[in-house]
């Protein structure tokens, strides 16, 4: 599908700039041009499509749906799926958390949403398709959903309500299963489009610098790091690689656009895919900044349990990916 982009990249590097086919600089630049164009196109399309879906599932509607319907266990899956289509801005995590809990949604279900939302979003999906192909993207999306469901179920079983901060408990006491009047906006698709387009522009404006820098670094690594370089240190047989890279990644934060291009190069140079994906999930899904934000609503004990359970699930996914792929 993207052969024409490769042709453009080849033309610029080998014809216009006349770089030699063997030079590392040529490799790096070719990779950079090809990937930048391909990924920007993919991301734009996917953000737009997800924007349309998301326009029909605003958070208020999701909240009301989850609190009103008895789903016999399926609510974790629904929460996770909504996390996929809802864009995640980490500064919204607290209002969202409180909104959900006020609506009477169980803590575990809320966690399912909170876990899947940052992991599986339009930017990550676009990048994954561009860098790893559709098959791995589907696997990633599924694992993000499963991760959310499993973490949610586990966390729900720990009965952690008592670890919410006093301020939140106050709000809950006064809220009484609040369901805000959700005034459904009956807009036709064509009416929603201008808003969606401006959303696409806003998101792109936010991530383009990171994507470009990420791809640039990836490009340099692509050209200058020898093939199989990492294999000696991090083969599939090294059992400690997965947990160590995951745990290292937890406090780190980068959005998907910055970290994925680099992860792709690491994989191309020999790091097992499972280890790399576990690393990426821990970087994007959990972070020190997020923990700081959550301190307002959760006691440190609750945050640690939350992070601990999710980290464990990520490590397990890492091992599973290494085995399957």
């Amino acid at each position: 599908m993207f052969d024409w982009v490769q042709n453009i990249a080849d033309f610029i590097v080998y014809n216009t700039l006349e770089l030699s086919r063997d030079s590392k600089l040529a490799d790096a630049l070719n990779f950079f041009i090809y990937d930048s164009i391909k990924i920007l196109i993919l991301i734009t399309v996917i953000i737009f499509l997800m924007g349309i879906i998301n326009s029909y599932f605003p958070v208020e509607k999701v909240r009301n749906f989850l609190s009103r319907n008895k789903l016999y266990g399926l609510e974790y899956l629904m929460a996770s799926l909504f996390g996929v289509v809802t864009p995640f801005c980490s500064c919204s995590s607290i209002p969202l958390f409180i909104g959900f809990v006020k609506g009477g949604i169980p803590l575990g279900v809320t966690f399912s949403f909170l876990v899947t939302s940052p992991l599986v979003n339009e930017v990550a999906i676009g990048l994954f398709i561009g860098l790893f192909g559709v098959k791995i993207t589907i696997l990633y999306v599924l694992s993000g959903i499963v991760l959310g469901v499993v973490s949610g179920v586990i966390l729900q079983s720990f009965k952690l309500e008592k670890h919410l901060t006093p301020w939140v408990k106050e709000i809950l006491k006064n809220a009484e299963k609040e369901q805000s009047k959700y005034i459904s906006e009956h807009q036709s698709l064509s009416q929603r489009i201008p808003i969606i387009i401006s959303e696409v522009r806003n998101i792109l404006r936010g991530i383009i610098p990171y994507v470009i820098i990420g791809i640039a670094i990836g490009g340099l690594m692509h050209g200058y790091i020898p093939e199989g370089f990492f294999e000696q240190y991090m083969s599939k047989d090294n059992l400690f690689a997965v947990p160590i890279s995951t745990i290292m990644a937890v406090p780190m934060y980068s959005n998907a656009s910055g970290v994925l291009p680099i992860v792709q190069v690491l994989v191309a140079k020999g790091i097992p895919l499972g280890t790399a994906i576990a690393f990426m999930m821990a970087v994007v899904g959990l972070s020190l900044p997020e923990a700081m934000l959550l301190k307002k609503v959760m006691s440190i004990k609750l945050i640690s349990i939350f992070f601990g359970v999710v980290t464990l699930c990520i490590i397990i996914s890492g091992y599973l990916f290494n085995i399957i792929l």
Partner: protein
Amino acid sequence: MSKEIKVLGTGCPKCMQTTSIITEVVAENDFDASIEKVEDIMEIMKYNVMSTPAVVVDGEVVIKGRIPSKQELKDLLS
């Protein structure tokens, strides 16, 4: 007659962008309005929003969870 505009947001880039767009629209159209940025999460929660940035005009939440366009703001404030 002066409208009271509040921008709810904990300080991430989106919230700052919203504030600057509103400031521009108010200045360009010479609206009589005050703009206040609410960053304290406890205050924000009083408006029952679930995603930021959010815009409140005279006590009513008019924009939730996204950066409004200049045209939208113009329509809302006139």
